[in-house]
């Protein structure tokens, strides 16, 4: 309520002082809601803890288990398990969820031309972005650790990881900004190629298939730092004796890298690669912010969102979600097995 008042005032642009007043009011109300919710939540817990703490005897233990585990189990059931089953169910039904269609939504996804393009793009993303990010990260991990001031380099390369993908997309959209060649360029990429002698650079975002790779650059920009930090830790953990022995045997340079370092960190390398693949498969923010899926850049995650929540094709959207799930499943499964192995061996 307060807020609509505030925006109207801002629109008329006449009552600045009043705007400020109701604006701050709005801030107070919102943050108050949020603090109140936390206080209420913790308060209820405290009361329950106090009351249940007095219960003793036969019911004490089951009661404690129920209170500690209940909220988590309920939320997981309502928020993950039931929706998971229901999405699979919806994917076999029409968009109003009334008619059973069998596999029609899936055959739509696998045979329609426009969706073909989407799947192809997704595959391209899956191959290019994770391998480049992991490869660059590995090289940086090898190089940076013996340099002076390595913390500075590492921080700067890792920094994009803290920024939202929306923010990153805006940063890069600005880099790719293109103007008519009669005007001054304000996008760094256009200006750079002009300095290099290319008189009439294209409008980058509109040039298919180049634009796909320009969008992937954002993902690589974000994920390289992650790969570098994890791999750097893995390289540091290689025991001294191993490299020493290899060196005494006369291995050096590239051979040492290929036959000692890489095998020693193989598990970590694969985990990093699969992790970046998972992120790449699920991320829809970059495509959504930079092109909205136009100009031949659509990917599975964004198509799923558009089908479900823009065009309200619930059945098709669900089918795409299931396809995404099936694509992610082996990758996450592999990572989880690795995680458990590592826990077991320690």
């Amino acid at each position, binding site marked *: 309520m307060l807020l609509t008042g505030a925006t109207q005032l801002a629109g008329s642009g006449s009552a600045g002082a009043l705007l400020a007043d109701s604006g701050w009011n709005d801030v107070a109300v919102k943050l108050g809601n949020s603090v109140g919710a936390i206080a209420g939540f913790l308060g209820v817990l405290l009361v329950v803890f106090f009351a249940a703490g007095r219960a003793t005897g036969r019911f004490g233990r089951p009661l404690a288990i129920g209170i500690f585990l209940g909220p988590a189990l309920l939320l997981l059931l309502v928020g993950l398990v039931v929706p998971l089953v229901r999405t699979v169910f919806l994917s076999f039904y029409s968009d109003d969820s009334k008619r059973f269609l069998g596999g029609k939504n899936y055959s739509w996804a696998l045979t329609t031309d426009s969706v073909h393009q989407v799947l192809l793009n997704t595959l391209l993303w899956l191959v290019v972005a994770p391998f480049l990010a992991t490869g660059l990260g590995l090289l940086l991990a090898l190089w940076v650790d013996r340099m002076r001031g390595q913390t500075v380099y590492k921080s700067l390369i890792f920094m994009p990881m*803290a920024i939202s993908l929306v923010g990153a997309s805006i940063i*890069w959209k600005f880099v790719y900004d293109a103007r008519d060649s009669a005007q001054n360029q*304000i996008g760094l990429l256009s200006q750079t190629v002009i300095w290099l002698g290319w008189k009439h650079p294209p409008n980058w975002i509109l040039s298919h298939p180049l634009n796909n790779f320009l969008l992937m650059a954002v993902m690589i920009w974000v994920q390289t730092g992650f790969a570098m930090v994890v791999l750097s830790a893995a390289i540091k953990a290689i025991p001294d004796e191993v490299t020493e022995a290899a060196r005494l045997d006369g291995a050096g*340079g590239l051979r040492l890298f290929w036959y000692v370092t890489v095998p020693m960190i193989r598990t970590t390398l694969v985990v990093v690669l699969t992790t970046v693949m998972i992120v790449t498969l699920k991320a829809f923010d970059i495509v959504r912010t930079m092109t909205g899926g136009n100009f031949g850049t659509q990917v599975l995650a964004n198509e799923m969102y558009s089908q479900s929540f823009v065009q309200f094709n619930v059945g098709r959207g669900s089918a795409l979600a299931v396809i995404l*799930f099936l694509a992610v499943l082996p990758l996450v499964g592999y990572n989880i097995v690795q995680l458990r192995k590592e826990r077991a061996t320690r």
Partner: protein
Amino acid sequence: MSSQLMDRQPQPSEAPLPPAKAVRKAFSSPFSSLLVVVLTVLWTIPTLGLLVTSVRPKQDVADSGWWTFFTHPDATLANYHTVLFEGGFGVSGGLMPYLVNSLAISVPATVFPLVIAAMAAYALAWVPFRGSDTLFFLIFALQVVPLQMTLIPLLQLFSGGAHVGGATIVPALNLSGTYAPVWLAHTMFALPLATFLLHNFISQLPRDLMEAAVVDGASHFKIFRSIVLPLCTPALASFAIFQFLWVWNDLLVALTFAGGTPEVAPMTVRLAQLSGSFGGHWELLTAGAFLSMIVPLLVFFALQRYFVRGLLSGSVKG
């Protein structure tokens, strides 16, 4: 990977360890150092361009590239004022409400899963019952579910309630226009990972200590509050930072459950909208984008060590 990283003490950062030195030496050359410097510069320039553009006057931004700023420096904070309080994208209303929403969404969406997961992790680790191991594994395995699989049914539940064969199990909750759906959704999605990580930590607490407390007659609730929570602070902090940044930077959950109104939508949602429809106003878009990055960047530079640990452990989330 995660368990190992959660347990590892934050080392006095980057003290050169002798091991891998040999490999690194083998790879070292002035050439590789130069490449690192070049890559670092390449990695930083886009963000620098954004920052510089956001403080240049409107006309300058429209007429010339941001790199000319260094030869003709002319800085102003007007863009930030416009974008925060006035709007200026051809729409009324600035980003201020959205910035507040981001904060009002992120803090509870961090506290709720943290507390609920810590409780569950404690029960699974220290109050064993039949099937508790299986239960732990099931919760852990739920990490494979991508967000996308849950969005449609969850949205239907929040807006229409749940019905089985005509009988209403959950009535339609009128939650639209409040933060509740976003808080709930983030809490639900965070639980598998949070429970897993905190269980790793809580199950490592010394057994003697726990048994002594039980002998002294402390209830599970007392043990949880006065022993488990204080001892778990490092793990809780790591996860809290990760979760806070995850929620702050999230677009998918917010877009689905908050919609695009200034009442509840966070910065990411608004920026994605503006980037689509008002891409020409670079001086405003860059200022807005930078505003949304200030909080995560501060957290990043101030708490980098915890941030790295939380991030690595949470790398499969989503």
